[in-house]
């Protein structure tokens, strides 16, 4: 009988992860002592923890290494995503503090779950081992299932949680089976080793590898809501509390892509000839289904859900392009997308009032005129999502499409561009409602909810600044990708 050896642990790379985990535990404990109904203090603890984690992650930028028997890697790629997730979660916390109050969710666990979900995300981005990636995915997802249903008094929230859970479990099954096949083919779960056995010449188990990759593709397809595995997304996005929807659209999607890109663009790139065409089709389907379905939506959350599907399609275009350019474009786009989409959901939250969510597009009539700041913010987000220069979303698409063209995918790019055109119609439709019609819901001044206001300011400013000066941010993304390839 062999004794279980405890692996060598270098703690430095783990610090950001540990800080977020510690914060989550701290919030959990603090929750025991706080007696509501005001849980803002928990949000603050979470925010401080996330800021601290970023503060620790940034100085690690120039270091690299692995720890925990090589299953967790300290590389720029992981750090990039760590910071991105902290940003997404931090913004979500800001949104939530006012939101929980108006929706009477008032539940301290909410903050704990957000933070634990973030821990799962960071784990996914840092890990270079399939099993640990899976672990991270489950930590993230289970917290998210609970979050989707946390508005217990709302039927649609319950429904969302159930749907999300059942289909999420499905996806996990596919992923796990894919991992098993990859393990069967290579005898390894560590990504670098799998890459070796996928290298040309040494692939005697090629069929198994390809089959494993196909299953992973399905699993990740579910998680990032790529067509035809997207059908859960609109219902879940609509049913979940809006702050959670923002979290899912930005953070969870980014985390899934973090692992997706690391496995496909990096590890399985020797097999690219086998999976690229499938991904090509997936990208086209996802963009088109997302955009065309969004055209007919009357509920803003469903509209944003379909738009989010479409954006997953654009991201897949970047993955098809592959290589450092495509990967960097995907990373950059994810960061930009986090800003835009969290911002858009923040406006949705700002529009809602107690017992009156105002999610129907008709409720938005005239909002831009009655409330210039909210109108301006939503205009920025909609135009940025539509890809109008000089906003961040345009730069994101520019990098994605350039990468695809550079890799020779002219028609894919043209399809993507035509899809953007379709999307213009429904994004502009929101502006039409806000500015060119009258008679919607009355809205509180955004300043009345300071946290929400702060989140809006941050996302608007970010969307404009990154759009005007994309270079430093893209360089970060590129150097993150470089640390992989």
């Amino acid at each position, binding site marked *: 009988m062999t004794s279980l050896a405890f692996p060598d642990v270098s703690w430095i790379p783990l610090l950001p992860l540990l800080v977020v985990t510690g914060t989550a535990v701290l919030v959990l404990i603090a929750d025991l002592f706080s007696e509501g109904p005001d849980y803002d203090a928990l949000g603050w603890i979470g925010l401080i923890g996330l800021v601290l984690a970023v503060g620790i992650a940034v100085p690690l930028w120039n270091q690299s290494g692995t720890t925990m028997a090589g299953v967790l890697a300290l590389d720029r790629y992981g750090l990039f995503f760590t910071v991105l997730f902290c940003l997404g979660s931090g913004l979500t916390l800001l949104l939530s503090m006012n939101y929980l109050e108006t929706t009477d969710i008032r539940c301290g666990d909410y903050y704990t779950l957000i933070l634990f979900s973030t821990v799962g995300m960071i784990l996914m981005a840092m890990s270079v081992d399939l099993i640990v990636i899976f672990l991270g995915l489950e930590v993230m997802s289970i917290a998210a299932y609970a979050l989707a249903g946390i508005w217990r008094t709302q039927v649609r929230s319950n429904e969302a949680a159930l749907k999300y859970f059942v289909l999420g479990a499905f996806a996990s099954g596919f992923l796990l089976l894919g991992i098993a096949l990859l393990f069967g083919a290579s005898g390894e779960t560590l990504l670098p080793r799998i890459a070796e056995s996928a290298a040309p010449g040494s692939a005697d188990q090629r069929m198994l590898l390809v089959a494993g990759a196909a299953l992973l593709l399905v699993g990740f397809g579910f998680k990032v809501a790529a067509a035809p595995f997207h059908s859960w997304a609109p219902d879940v996005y609509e049913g979940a509390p809006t702050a959670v929807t923002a979290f899912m659209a930005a953070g969870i999607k980014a985390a899934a892509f973090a692992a997706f890109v690391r496995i496909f663009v990096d590890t399985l790139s020797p097999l690219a000839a086998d999976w690229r065409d499938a991904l090509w089709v997936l990208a086209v389907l996802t963009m088109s289904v997302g955009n065309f379905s969004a055209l007919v939506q009357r509920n803003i959350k469903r509209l944003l859900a379909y738009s989010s599907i479409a954006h997953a399609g654009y991201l897949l275009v970047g993955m098809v392009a592959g290589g450092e350019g495509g990967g960097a474009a995907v990373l950059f786009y994810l960061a930009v997308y986090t800003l835009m989409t969290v911002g858009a959901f923040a406006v949705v939250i700002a529009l809602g009032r107690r017992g009156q969510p105002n999610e129907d597009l008709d409720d938005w009539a005239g909002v831009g005129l009655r409330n210039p700041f909210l109108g301006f913010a939503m205009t920025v987000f909609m135009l940025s999502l539509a890809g109008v220069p000089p906003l961040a979303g345009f730069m994101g698409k520019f990098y994605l499409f*350039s990468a695809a063209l550079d890799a020779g995918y002219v028609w894919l790019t043209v399809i993507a*561009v035509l899809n953007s055109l379709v999307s213009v119609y429904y994004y502009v*439709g929101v502006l*039409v409602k806000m*500015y060119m*019609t009258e008679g919607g819901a009355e809205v509180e001044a955004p300043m009345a909810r300071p946290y929400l206001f702060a989140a809006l300011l941050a996302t608007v400013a970010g969307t404009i600044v990154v759009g005007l000066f994309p*270079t430093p941010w*893209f360089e970060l993304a590129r150097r993150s990708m470089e640390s992989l390839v």
Partner: protein
Amino acid sequence: MPLLSAIVFTPLLGALVLLFVAREQTQALRRAALVFSLVPFAFSLWLVAEFDGVHGGLQWVERAAWIPRFGIHYMLGVDGISLFLVLLTTFLMPIVCVQAWDVHHRLKEYLVLLLVMESAMLGALVATDLFLFYVFWELMLIPMYFLIGIWGGERRIYAAIKLVLYTMAGSLLMLVAIIYLALAHHQQVGQYSFAWEHLLQLHLSLDVQRLLFAAFALAFAIKVPMFPLHTWLPDAHTEAPTGGSVILAAILLKMGTYGFLRFAIPLFPQAAVEAMPVIAALAVIGIIYGALVCMVQPDLKRLVAYSSVSHLGFVMLGMAALTLQGVQGSLMQMLNHGLSTGGLFLAVGAIYERRHTRLIAEFGGLWARLPVFGALFLVVMLSSVGLPGLNGFVGEFLILLGAFGRYPLGAILGTTGVILGAVYLLWMFQRVMFGPLTHPENAALRDLSAREVAMFVPLIALFFLLGLYPKPVLQRMEPAVRVTLDRLEPYLERAGLPRSDQALHVAGGGSAE
């Protein structure tokens, strides 16, 4: 001094300043907008004065790295092709700002959007990096969308969305083509570049040129708008508020024709030479079709809108000739159309302001009531007709002269467009202004105020100036036009077409000066 940047960004600065003025302070808002639109006008007068009219290259070049990894620069420059369009823009915007006195609904936002619009248009005219150009190009669309959608007429939403979708459809494909060019530059030279001057040096196979030219041409043809891509224009024009119509007709449409001359033709010379007969044919169809539709238009504003389709057909015909005179005439006509049609929309706007209808049948015999307006409107109308001595004549004459050497039939058919133009405009004028006063409610209309007259006076002064003495303008344009045409010579020759300066002799005309 970075003069071009100053011209481009002063209006934007003004828009920011206006944001901080309380919306109740209408007088302050109006004055501030006027000042911030007059400053770039002053700057561009200086630009014209200092402009070196001997050389064809870019002048006042500014350059700063923006996205260096992809060779994207903040790069501005001006040459004879863009110079007067800049001046046209900065000249018209103060007039539009004065016209905005008539806007009472959400004046502040209106003025802010006007100024943002001006910056975007000026930026697109002087950007010499294709990426930067694209940014400004798309940016133009947003303020116009709001101007139509918020301040427009009955079907404003339909018109606004149509405008956005049509224009975006073209420009997104152009974006793909632009990126493709930068990648080609990377392949051939080893580094990315979006700089116009660099991309001109690329060697592109004819097949590639055809595709890229198509992408560029589509974007520009929609903007022009060329037949059969013109259908967004009557709607946009009809629904837009007066200021929006003036900008749209006078400046925005020129972005399309300018785009052809600046980008589509010189970047893909071989494909351009190949495509020009088709463009000429479409232009002639546009001239006649637009004029015929004008004949039967009951709505004044729609009439002026369709007259743009016809007049822009002339601009495209002159350009498609690819002769010195044709292209110069085309450039000249861009200015003329901007001034004349801007004036027509102002006039229609003034009537609409008084009667809240634009139906020709609602008027008649206005001259007796509004003599000042009548006189001004008459001059504007005649300038649009192309009466010799006024600006419109110079452009049309040069275009027909230039086109004749290349497409005799096209020129002949185009000439009928001139006649048709005279017919529908004169007829319209007659029905509105002369005859007995058929509608009693028109009897009480007041004549133009001093402010309104002040909008027309500078326009009319320019009509005469350009009509009687176009030389300073043509002279400054010529070197840049020559440079553009020189690029085409080898391909024209290969296509068996006479060289452009020989074409002049074929046409039997001397130099225009």
